[in-house]
């Protein structure tokens, strides 16, 4: 496999854009990512397009990527559509990376796009319920917020986490989001405001949770060795982009209430191994926190610390913007917004900006104080039974 580099990134602001279609959102991110490089757009040979819900929300069930790319002014390139719920666009990145790595293409566009707002909230809720096995979950009342609530409740019992810890991490991310011009929610919030907002599913309150969002994010990738031809900016290498799906739960009867993070951990371990780094090397991370408290589970899954250590970590502000290991400088899913099919590449875009030193007011400093060199994104999509349907981890290096 050839090494693969990211040479351009671009995203729309995330938010509620009733007047914008997936075509409008997609083309904006695509052209921003092109202008972020010096590439001649005619050199783009293929596009991998991740989207989760357009079929249900907009009715555009088929040929989504082709419809978007044509609107964006492209013709005669290979277009591949991928879907994996909230991990759709990280899958697009991975597929693009494999194609470039294998030498099939030299320059590839990866896009994530989602439109969740329509004029019918119940349609949006129904669409989300389809990111499960609808026969055993989505069709009989399962909701993502309740699944996260149950997981966090178990963590409270096992690790002694409290609802206040959850509000602290949510407030941290709301603050980070307030510094991010692309974020859906740019208002900082106090721990009290978050704790006192209405309970959606105990222990989760409204302001701990992501809400529907519209948006798109795109990256341009190429062979590492030719990256200098297309950009004068720091070149970001994809150290690893690993995936695991439908992990088989341990079938020995377990104790009720037991936590099992194995499905989340598998791609993380694989990514560390492939990239030749470990948790101690990570200087900034974007963690999949559809509900902010899930970021805390991320610290365990990524090998940053043990569950019992997390209250102290929060106390020491370790994962805050100026801490030793900033997590979700973008604001994470709850503050930046979670247009599900765009989230993966929004994480990647944020990390590229951080690694290049282009993240503005939310720029993290890294170990040396000269900006981070190694970054990690963790992303997951859908649920089947008790497990994530897709679990992913990407490591980027400057």
């Amino acid at each position, binding site marked *: 496999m050839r090494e693969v580099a990211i040479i351009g990134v671009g995203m729309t602001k995330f938010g509620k854009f009733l007047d914008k279609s997936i075509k409008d959102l997609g083309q904006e991110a695509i052209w921003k990512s092109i202008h972020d490089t010096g590439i001649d757009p005619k050199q783009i040979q293929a596009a991998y397009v991740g989207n989760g819900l357009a079929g249900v929300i907009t009715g555009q069930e088929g040929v989504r990527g082709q419809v978007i790319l044509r609107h964006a002014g492209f013709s005669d390139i290979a277009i591949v559509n991928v879907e994996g719920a909230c991990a759709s666009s990280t899958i697009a990145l991975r597929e693009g990376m494999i194609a470039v790595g294998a030498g099939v293409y030299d320059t590839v566009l990866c896009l994530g796009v989602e439109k969740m707002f329509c004029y019918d909230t119940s349609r949006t809720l129904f669409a989300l319920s389809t990111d499960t096995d609808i026969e055993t979950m989505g069709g009989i009342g399962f909701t993502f917020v309740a699944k996260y609530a149950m997981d966090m409740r178990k963590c409270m019992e096992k690790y002694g986490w409290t609802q206040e810890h959850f509000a602290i991490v949510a407030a941290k991310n709301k603050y980070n989001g307030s510094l991010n011009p692309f974020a859906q929610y740019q208002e900082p919030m106090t721990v009290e405001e978050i704790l006192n907002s209405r309970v959606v599913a105990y222990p989760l309150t409204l302001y701990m949770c992501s809400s529907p969002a519209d948006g798109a994010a795109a990256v341009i990738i190429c062979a590492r060795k030719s990256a200098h031809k297309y950009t004068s900016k720091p070149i970001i290498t994809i150290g690893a982009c690993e995936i695991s799906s439908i992990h088989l739960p341990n079938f020995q009867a377990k104790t*009720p209430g037991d936590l099992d993070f194995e499905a989340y951990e598998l791609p993380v371990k694989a990514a560390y191994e492939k990239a030749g780094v470990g948790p101690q090397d990570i200087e900034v991370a974007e963690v999949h926190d559809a509900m902010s408290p899930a970021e805390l589970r991320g610290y365990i899954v990524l090998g940053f610390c043990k569950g019992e250590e997390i209250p102290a970590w929060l106390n020491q502000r370790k994962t805050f913007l100026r801490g030793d290991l900033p997590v979700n400088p973008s604001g994470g899913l709850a503050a930046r917004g979670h247009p599900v099919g765009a989230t993966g590449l929004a994480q990647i875009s944020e990390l590229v900006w951080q690694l290049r030193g282009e993240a503005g007011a939310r720029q993290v400093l890294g170990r040396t104080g000269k900006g981070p060199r190694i970054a990690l994104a963790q992303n997951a999509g859908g649920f089947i039974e008790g497990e994530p349907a897709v679990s992913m981890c990407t490591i980027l290096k400057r």
Partner: protein
Amino acid sequence: MSDQKQRILIKEGWFCIPDAPGKEPYLIGSKCSQCGYTHFPKIVACPVCRKDGVMNEGPLSRKGKLDSFTVAHQGPPGFETPYIQAYVLLPEGIKIFTLIEGVEPLDNALKTGQEMELIISKVREDENGNEIIGWKFRPTTEARIKEGI
């Protein structure tokens, strides 16, 4: 066509509804004849052995233990809120997603590990008002007495 609401099963063949007083409902799963892996709903091949032709259908335990629960204040169309979502762990090692009946939708209504039993009941109504029938769980009488609920 009658105006009567119909009762529609989530899926034929996934559970057995008692046909006489004194009989109990049960879920139908499948068990690998080689390694013992058991799955609900029934599947055609064993994912541990990755082999077909080894799974045998059979009834699953009617009772399990509460793994986790929460009171959902927001749900998909067709569900009246608040309602309890939960996972119940069956002795076969299956963690099954389920709604809970028989207790108030309160944050302290249930305890991790308490004994739960299967019932077949209305899960939701469809857009035409038909009743969609499937599995749910409720605390067993013994568990109610023990937990004082």
